[in-house]
């Protein structure tokens, strides 16, 4: 990755804007909106897992938490600007607390996976059981299994009655994704981002250099959760209902699959994986021959077995091998396993 903003970024920007404008001619903006949102969610895990080496089985926890935050706040406040901010901040704060607890205990790999998974389950079980009228936050009833419908959706900041929906919502989401993408790009170029990659590669070495690995991992974890929160704030506005299903293990699994298929350690990969697989699922949903879940399962197994680095890195290295001059063909130990969060567990 280049060290400074340059041609690559301009190209990415042009490509992104062009894609944003062209795609509505091919796919309905209603479907596109959710693809863009999933892309952002994929990127949130892609950042903390692909670049920070933190394997989180519970990205859905932040997704669900952000959604409920938005819904509850929107009902109580009656406009959308502050709820959107809260849907970013609450998951980020929650992740900071959870991260501080986990990383200070020097928990790694599997144990991190278990704890994030369990926390997701706790939230899932809890929200599912809040059907009774006693579960209220301000004006908002949590509604148990049925979720919360009928909250105030996105409006122009300052004008609660100027709703943004349909096509404009798509453009808001697409611009938000571009902003997040360049935020991540920038973050990875700052010393913070580069040290995060160092931590992924070798935690001990980075701490022997004098960096507080625990604090840095916690911060990165919180940033990832904040991005997931932004995605879900938009998602809530698209779906116009939030349900406990957002916390489900299936949701967590899907986010992980997006990252694997798209490619870890890249910024495009998770976005591409998310949008591509979500669209595939949408298409599959229109036929009844083969079960949807079965195909998702096969895709995941096949990728782990045959293309463990994902599509984007594979295409990139194919490109490099075919076109670049002076490619050092050398040994390359361990790095694919490392990128996954280590093989030495």
């Amino acid at each position: 990755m280049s060290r400074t903003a340059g041609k690559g970024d301009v190209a990415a920007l042009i490509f992104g804007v062009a894609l944003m404008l062209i795609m509505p001619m091919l796919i309905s903006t209603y479907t596109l909106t959710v693809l863009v949102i999933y892309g952002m969610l994929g990127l949130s895990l892609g950042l903390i897992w692909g670049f920070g080496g933190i394997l989180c089985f519970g990205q859905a926890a932040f997704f669900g938490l952000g959604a409920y935050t938005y819904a509850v706040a929107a009902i109580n406040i009656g406009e959308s600007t502050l709820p959107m901010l809260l849907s970013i901040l609450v998951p980020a704060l929650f992740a900071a607390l959870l991260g501080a607890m986990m990383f200070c205990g020097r928990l790694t790999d599997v144990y991190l996976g278990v704890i994030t998974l369990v926390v997701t389950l706790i939230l899932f079980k809890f929200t599912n059981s809040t059907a009774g009228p006693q579960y209220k936050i301000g004006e908002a009833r949590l509604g148990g299994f049925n979720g919360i419908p009928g909250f105030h959706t996105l409006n122009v900041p300052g004008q609660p009655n100027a709703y943004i929906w349909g096509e404009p919502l798509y453009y808001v989401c697409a611009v938000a994704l571009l902003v997040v993408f360049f935020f991540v790009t920038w973050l990875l170029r700052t010393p913070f981002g580069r040290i995060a990659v160092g931590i992924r590669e070798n935690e001990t070495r980075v701490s022997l250099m004098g960096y507080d690995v625990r604090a840095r991992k916690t911060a990165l974890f919180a940033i990832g959760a904040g991005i997931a929160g932004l995605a879900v704030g938009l998602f809530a506005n698209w779906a116009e209902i939030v349900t406990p299903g957002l916390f489900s293990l299936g949701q967590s699994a899907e986010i992980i699959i997006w990252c694997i298929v798209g490619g870890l350690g890249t910024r495009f990969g998770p976005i591409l994986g998310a949008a591509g697989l979500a669209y595939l699922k949408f298409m599959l949903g229109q036929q009844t021959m083969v079960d949807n879940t079965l195909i998702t399962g096969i895709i995941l197994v096949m990728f782990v077995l045959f293309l463990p680095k994902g599509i984007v890195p594979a295409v990139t290295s194919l490109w490099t091998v075919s076109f670049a001059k002076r490619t050092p063909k050398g040994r390359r130990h361990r790095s694919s396993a490392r990128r996954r969060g280590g093989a030495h567990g």
Partner: protein
Amino acid sequence: MASDNVNFKLKARELRCLIGPNGAGKSTFFKCISGLHTPTEGRVFMRGQETTGWHPHEIASLGVGIKTQVPNVMDALSVFENIWMAARRFMPTRAANTKTSDIIDRLRLGPIARAELGRLAHGERQRVELGLVAVADPWLVLLDEPAAGMSAEDVARMSEIIHELTRTAAGVIVEHDMQFIRSIATTVTVFHQGAVLMEDHVDRVMSDPVVRNVYLGKNA
């Protein structure tokens, strides 16, 4: 393996080698002072400050450079990035860039500066790791077997680098290679069964019959 009853003092800019047979407690001792282990008993002081039970990153932040026994480097990153990260801890980005290039020249890593660590040979990786330590201008360096598994040529280069490092820093080096020790140190501390057996000039240690018996006798 453990070390007990170790009373170990190091003066400023003093270079000391720790030797002893396998299991003598050198590594445990090393881990206790570098913060990788918390000693169950006993206390560690650095420059008058107690550092017992500190985390490695806190000890490193004091200006202590640490190199562990297994090469600890970041495989997917380049030589430059590896060293830069160590420099950036103690200085702003621009200064870190200059300083990193400087160290790369001094260690003659120039031709491989952009290569990924995962592609390098063992000796080169060891050298890069020493570069990581050197770039932060430590006042104390702790090196665990820096010459392990290296060719004679690499060892010679390594001792040169260590000499340069220890012009400004004190050093504790755990080592097996006697040739190497002779080339870098004057004072040697011998560990045996978790305690200090002897502490003296390298030549006197080598000729001491007890030391020869417990250590050299078995190995040579």
